[in-house]
């Protein structure tokens, strides 16, 4: 394990690293692995050698520590102690001297620093000294800090004594520590404190943490005569005891506590609600009945608490009464209960949920729809389709999610059967959406057929669904739609679908096969231009020659499309083409497109040698005559952390229009180079 000394030796190691690198400029990887092993060796060596200064000296150095930056003394001490903590003699020495130090006139920060170490190493031998510290206000916190987590009976005894021998805030701390340690012997000492101001609440919480039967009895006895102010803490402690009793199998004792607290209307609502939750848990099989009883009240918070326990309490066969009660509950409670019912067997709850899905209350309908994915089946499809196609907002979203999430292949079949019946447009759209969501591939032909629907909405959804379940064999049909339609949305939808489908072709050089075939057969310049526009979306490099040839086409539209396609090409394979366009094109728009494309391509290639990337960006900058493109260059420059990039960015500082971008690039590069 490495200690902080490594940071101290790190500068030497770093020098070694630089030396080695300078000496052998090649083979960086092998150098790194050598240095790594040296680093590890240094770490092991350092770990084996604790500081050579004596403990007394280390403590002297620590004694003036102010808690600030100059904490080397603390780290040295830590190393010293850690090196000895598992060795009896060493540990004993450290413990003794640290205890003395903690009581010394050293700064508070120094004494706290020493106490942290005592917390790790203190054993029974430290207890007498710690116990004595409890009587001193200046030292009591430190003593508790060490005593509270210390294992063993000696620490128990010291804290037990402190419950009687200390006063004020120290006593409160000792009470809290006794609770944290589950000190059952403390119960008789804590019980009388329950009725005392200042210590009553901590004592109640501590007894709750101890959680024994005796602690529960003490709390119950105090509760009987308690004031309204002290009751909440007593109730909190009692409930913790009840939890322990329940976990130990004593449900009757736990139930007694909860019922007593539930019956006390003087308690704050939140406490009674917790008691209600406890009643359910402690009632075992009777918990379902308690839930029904609580739901029969008019208290919304109690409803919430009861409904929150339904799934853990009500058996699948016992959910009937809840289903019967649901429609009579306030809206908010119906919403909550519907969510719980979704975890139950379909045959028990589906009718209730379906009825709720037709409620007049929007929140209840929505909750029912959200419950359906878990319990719905093929018979639910009609309702969901109707809702999905007619509702808007959250209900439509919930119906769609349900259609996509219903379990069972019967649902898939039901959807496909509905689609085959040529439903109304809105319903057809929802069916196509759901089929895709469910990845129901057997319905693909029907989805593809919907591309020829008379409804634009249906065609658009078919395009979207095919992106998910379509195959490359669907590309020709999609191309047909793309070329026929005058609707821009359909056109861009078709382009996206072609792009998705062609990516499913495993051989990259075959992805554009269908597009190329259509291009070869297409005479109309407008159609050819559109097809060329698809090629960068497909990204099949075997089509680059087609694009290059199209640069010389007789149709200006086709030439323009070829330029746009080349400058939008996604990979560096088109770099040279784009470069030539940026350099040679006489069309200003084309040159701008090319410059943008060049900058983008350089930025896309993440693994490229940074110097080469910067050289290309220099060329791009050379082509750029507008500040807009120079800003793009500077933006891309920031990705390549090397001296060349820094130099290039510096050169732009003289240009007022791009100075801010140059500074930003320099900052980014500078940070990366650090």
């Amino acid at each position, binding site marked *: 394990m490495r200690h902080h000394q490594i940071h101290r030796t790190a500068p030497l190691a770093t020098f070694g690293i630089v030396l080695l690198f300078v000496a052998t400029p090649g083979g960086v990887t092998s150098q790194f692995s050598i240095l790594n092993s040296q680093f590890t060796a240094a770490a092991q060596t350092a770990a084996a050698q604790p500081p050579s200064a004596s403990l007394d000296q280390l403590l002297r150095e620590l004694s003036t520590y102010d808690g600030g930056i100059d904490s080397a003394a603390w780290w040295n001490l830590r190393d010293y102690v850690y090196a000895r903590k598992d060795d009896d003699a060493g540990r004993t020495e450290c413990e003794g001297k640290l205890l003395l130090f903690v009581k010394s006139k050293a700064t508070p*920060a120094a004494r706290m620093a020493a106490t942290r170490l005592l917390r790790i190493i203190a054993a029974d031998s430290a207890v007498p000294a710690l116990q004595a510290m409890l009587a001193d206000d200046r030292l009591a916190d430190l003593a508790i800090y060490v005593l509270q*987590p210390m294992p063993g009976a000696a620490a128990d005894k010291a804290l037990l004594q402190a419950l009687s021998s200390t006063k004020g805030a120290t006593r409160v701390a000792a009470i809290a520590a006794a609770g944290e340690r589950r000190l059952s012997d403390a119960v008789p000492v804590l019980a009388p404190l329950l009725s005392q101001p200042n210590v009553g609440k901590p004592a109640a919480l501590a007894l709750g943490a101890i959680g024994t039967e005796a602690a529960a009895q003490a709390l119950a006895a105090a509760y009987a005569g308690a004031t309204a102010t002290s009751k909440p803490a007593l109730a909190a402690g009692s409930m913790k005891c009840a939890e322990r009793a329940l976990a130990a199998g004593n449900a009757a004792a736990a139930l007694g506590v909860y019922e007593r607290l539930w019956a006390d209307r003087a308690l704050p609502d939140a406490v009674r609600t917790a008691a209600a939750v406890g009643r359910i848990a402690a009632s075992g099989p009777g918990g379902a009945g308690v839930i029904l009883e609580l739901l029969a009240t008019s208290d919304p918070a109690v409803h919430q608490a009861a409904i929150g326990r339904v799934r853990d309490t009500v058996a699948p066969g016992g959910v009937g009464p809840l289903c019967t009660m649901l429609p009579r509950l306030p809206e908010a409670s119906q919403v909550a209960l519907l969510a*719980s019912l979704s975890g139950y067997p379909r045959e028990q709850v589906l009718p209730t949920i379906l009825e709720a899905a037709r409620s007049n209350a929007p929140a209840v309908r929505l909750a029912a729809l959200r419950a359906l994915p878990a319990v719905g089946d093929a018979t639910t499809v009609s309702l969901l389709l109707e809702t999905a196609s007619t509702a808007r907002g959250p209900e439509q979203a919930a119906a769609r999610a349900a259609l996509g999430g219903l379990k069972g292949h019967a649902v898939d079949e039901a959807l496909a059967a509905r689609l085959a019946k040529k439903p109304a447009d809105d319903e057809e759209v929802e069916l196509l959406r759901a089929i895709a969501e469910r990845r129901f591939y057997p319905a693909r032909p029907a989805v593809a057929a919907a591309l020829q629907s008379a409804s634009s909405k249906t065609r658009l959804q078919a395009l979207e669904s095919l992106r998910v379940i379509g195959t490359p064999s669907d590309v020709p049909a999609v191309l047909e739609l793309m070329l026929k339609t005058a609707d821009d949305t359909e056109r861009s939808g078709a382009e996206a679908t072609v792009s998705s489908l062609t990516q499913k072709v495993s051989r990259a050089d075959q992805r554009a096969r269908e597009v190329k075939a259509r291009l070869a057969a297409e005479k109309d310049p407008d159609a050819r231009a559109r097809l060329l526009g698809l090629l960068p979306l497909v990204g099949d490099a075997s089509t680059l020659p087609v694009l290059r040839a199209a640069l010389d086409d007789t149709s200006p539209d086709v030439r323009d499309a070829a330029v746009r396609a080349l400058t939008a090409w996604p990979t560096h394979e088109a770099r040279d083409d784009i470069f030539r366009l940026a350099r040679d094109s006489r069309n200003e728009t084309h040159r701008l497109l090319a410059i943008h494309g060049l900058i983008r391509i350089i930025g896309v290639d993440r693994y490229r040698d940074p110097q080469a990337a910067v050289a290309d960006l220099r060329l791009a900058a050379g082509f750029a005559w507008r500040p807009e493109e120079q800003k793009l260059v500077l933006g891309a420059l920031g990705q390549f952390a090397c001296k060349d990039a820094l130099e290039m960015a510096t050169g732009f500082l003289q240009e007022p229009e791009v100075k801010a971008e140059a500074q930003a690039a320099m900052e980014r590069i500078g940070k990366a180079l650090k």
Partner: protein
Amino acid sequence: MKKTRGFGRREFLKKAPLALAGAAAFPTIVKASALGRGGAVPPSDRIVMAGIGFGMQGPSNMRAFLGKSDVQWVAVCDLDDKPLGEAQKTVNDKYGNTDCKTYKDYRELYARGDLDAVSIAVPDHWHAILSIEAVGAGLDVFGEKPFTHSLREGRALCDAVKRHGRVWQTGSWQRSEDNFHRACELVRNGRIGKVRRVEVGLPSGHYDFAGTFGQEKIESPPPTFDYETWLGPAPWSPYCVARVHMNWRWNHDYGGGQLMDWVGHHLDIAHWGLGFDLTGPVQVKGKGEFPATGIYNSATRYWVETLYADGTPMVLAGGYPEIQSGTKWIGDLGWVWVDRGGFESQPAHLVHEVIGPNETRLYRSRDHQQNFLDCVRSRALTIAPAEVAHRSASVGHLGVIAIETGRAIRWDPARETIIGDAGAERLLARSYRKPYQVPA
């Protein structure tokens, strides 16, 4: 959505005619949103929220909730006047009024009586006290990770959430992000076969969030900042700028360094993918490297190895380049790796696979704050409930203990005890400075 008793609808309707008569003489312009128009949820149905802690994560959590139509944010609480004032202004600007109340004492906030939920984003050492008292006051909580500052506090908080029947959401928001969800579903549905090893890469070092590194000169705290309360249950230490606000996390008295900061993210995702949400490792060992000076004492570089009961080993590491940032499950048939910026697999096509409705589906949340709000209404478990958060944080706590003791820890996740090592066991809890005590 006040769930108070007493002044119910019937009472209001009885009193309403007088109120309306008075109002008729003074025409009032009522915002459409107050009447539930324009898609707005009427105020009476909104979830009433407040926030505690606006140093770093608090403001962005609050802004996310302010963007929800079914939330009414009514108050802010912080120990420092500056972030408190800024938070108040944010709320008032949102609603176009000056109704947002400020608090320095969280107990006064909890005592308001009109809150449904509270968002808590404070230093780790205050998580347990504020949260246990919040649920004890009948509030649902959106809390931050790590769940608590010690393992024992975590159990106490889980028990309190259950005892009071409250809804808890942890700020482990990656669970509500698509990539992480999909990655976990792939693993859970056996796409990479039996998982043989998990690697969790976390950040290393100490990051200067507040720009206060080096400002460790001991001085008096500013009068606008209640430092004594900020220290709370943590051991006393003198004030310096670098100790507080955002950078507190590098000191073990208040936080747990990068390990504890991030265990609630990438380790949490690892657990989710493995189906280990409600359990923990059976063995933990670790090593760490620490600074040589300064007040930050959490490990800057660390390596923690864990072993689970089914034999799955998991490494959590920060500062070791061989462990990639994020979560990586390595199985017999390939691997899946996911991080905030990436999602890759071997074989590569796995990342495009989608799990259908007839396979194992994991809890779906597309919006972490909205999931909390939905669960406040439905009383269902959130996507990152208390027990899950506690189990994620527990691995971090055990890692810190293993590093601290230099020993391999044997852990019983069911009973939550360390086996055969009393010295390590004592580090499961923290001693509170007087007069603080773990609430019930």
